[in-house]
């Protein structure tokens, strides 16, 4: 257990010294502020154009900026950012250490290979989770300071939870790639391509993509925008039929939710098994 703590210390130390932790936090917090700011500017323009047209109507109508207007895209931005930053950060974590002999120098000591992988997993997961939470919280603080909006924290925490599960999948996936590949460039290349493909399936209505972890980000949009599907654990997407008439369709969200968690665990277990058998 003491050695596990030492491995975690080493990972935290390395990520701090190499500026990785700081870069991730600054990036995600900037995303929180800039994303909300741009959405707020859009909302102001909408409000201005709405009010100028409604002034023609007797009595006038008022446009109120909703919380969803300001923070709903943030979860999308955060998700896409994770799919880009996670491969860059994790591609070398095992592959490079194995290739350079650093892993051998540690694993020849009384250190379990399971602890070696889990320490990396815990540290990267913590960094990404804290960065995502910070990003959302700073976005809420900023949204409250510029606009008089009421943010439902229950909904927000549900969305944060879904984003964290999405990040969990991305990290497990990259750790898996870094463990099974021989060099970091292969791990990074495959990771970026596959995670980018996953992001590209956002909003695609094909049933074949229902299980994709990226669907969790769509679910976040639904929650923040107060779409209420007819049953729990579902999200909606507008479907333009043959006659271009928009109809509401609902997809069971538990498929993507369950897949993300189960596949993360499986990927982590395979990574550990692979490292245990690896010739160092």
């Amino acid at each position, binding site marked *: 257990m*003491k*050695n596990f703590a*030492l491995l975690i210390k*080493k990972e935290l*130390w*390395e990520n701090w*010294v*190499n500026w990785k932790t700081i870069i991730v936090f600054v990036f995600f917090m900037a995303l929180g502020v800039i994303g909300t700011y741009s959405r707020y500017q859009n909302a102001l323009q909408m409000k201005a154009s709405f009010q100028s047209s409604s002034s023609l109507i007797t009595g006038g109508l008022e446009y109120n900026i909703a919380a969803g207007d300001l923070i709903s895209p943030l979860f999308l931005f955060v998700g896409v950012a994770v799919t880009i930053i996670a491969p860059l950060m994790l591609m070398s974590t095992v592959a490079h250490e194995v290739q*350079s*002999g*650093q892993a*051998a*120098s*540690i*694993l*020849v*000591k*009384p*250190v*379990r290979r399971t602890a070696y992988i889990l320490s990396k997993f815990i540290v990267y997961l913590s960094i990404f989770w804290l960065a995502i939470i910070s990003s959302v919280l700073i976005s809420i603080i900023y949204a409250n300071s510029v606009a008089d909006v009421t943010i439902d924290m229950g909904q927000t925490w549900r969305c944060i939870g879904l984003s964290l599960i999405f990040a969990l999948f991305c990290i497990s996936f990259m750790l898996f790639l870094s463990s099974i590949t021989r060099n970091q460039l292969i791990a990074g290349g495959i990771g970026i391509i596959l995670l980018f493909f996953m992001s590209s399936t956002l909003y695609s209505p094909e049933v074949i993509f229902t299980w994709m972890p990226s669907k969790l980000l769509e679910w976040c949009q639904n929650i923040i925008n107060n779409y209420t599907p007819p049953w729990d654990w579902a999200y909606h997407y507008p479907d333009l039929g043959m006659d271009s008439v928009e109809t509401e369709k609902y997809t069971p969200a538990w498929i993507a939710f369950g897949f993300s968690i189960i596949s993360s665990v499986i990927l982590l277990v395979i990574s550990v098994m692979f490292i245990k*058998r690896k*010739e*160092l």
Partner: protein
Amino acid sequence: MKNKDLAIQTIGLNKSFGTFTALEDLNIEVEPNTVYGFLGPNGSGKTTAIRLLTGLSSPTKGISCIFGYDSFARDMKARRIIGYLPDVPSFFSFMNGLQYLTYCGELFGINHQSAQKKAHELIERTGLKEATFRKTGKYSRGMKQRLGLAATLVGNPKVIFLDEPVSALDPIGRADVLDIIKDLREHTAVFLSTHILNDVERVCDKVGIIDHGNLIVSQNVKDLKKEYAKKGFEIKFTEDPSVILHIIRMQKWCEGVSCSVCEDNKYKLTVNVLDNAKAGKELLQIITQSDLSLVSFNTLEISLEDVFMRLARVR
């Protein structure tokens, strides 16, 4: 049978990579407080053997034990008592030398203060004092080899595996490291893989010669040299000794004789014999009767290199 009294023991150790057999039926026994030289040409299987012994690689067949503990076992009892210096040591470049050694000490269960104290001692011992606070990423190859040796010793191991430990060192550094290895013998068994035969002769008690994954020989350096020693004499004269050549050739103990001119214009007679004692006595009589001026009279010396070359050629 596993023997807990042996520092290192392998029983029928095999390692294959697909159809290629890197190591075949390796049987080694190394007693505690011994320096065991593991010799072999490049690609002979030395590093593969060390990786199996240190648990970094798993055998295809066979057992490798450190004081009776399986090297690849999950309980890691073997790993608590071993140290390993790879041929090209690699460190975490964000740590300095002191931090790295302290961290390694902590991984062996030593508390931070004691690990740091031990790290300072080892830095001094390996001649890295000036680079104590320098990031390991900025170390030269020789310094890395010294730091690697220090990291190997930080956990007070009972068995140390050194893979080409002096390959990147200058002559002074090499002498220093070999002195450290000699000193280690008091408390530790050292498994030294190298192809520098002079180093083996200088520090090793026992030697194993491996070629193409097969252990050719494993025995004490003295016994090995004795077994493979050529019997004979090397005699130098100021004049041409051709006159006595036919007399020597006629002796029963003579296996062969040759004459050559040395760089210092002296004549060298090399006599291979069956019995050193008898031949020595009679050779001196022949020389005395011949009136030749004798410069030197030596028995033939065999080096480990001669033995190695002879064994390698036989294969």
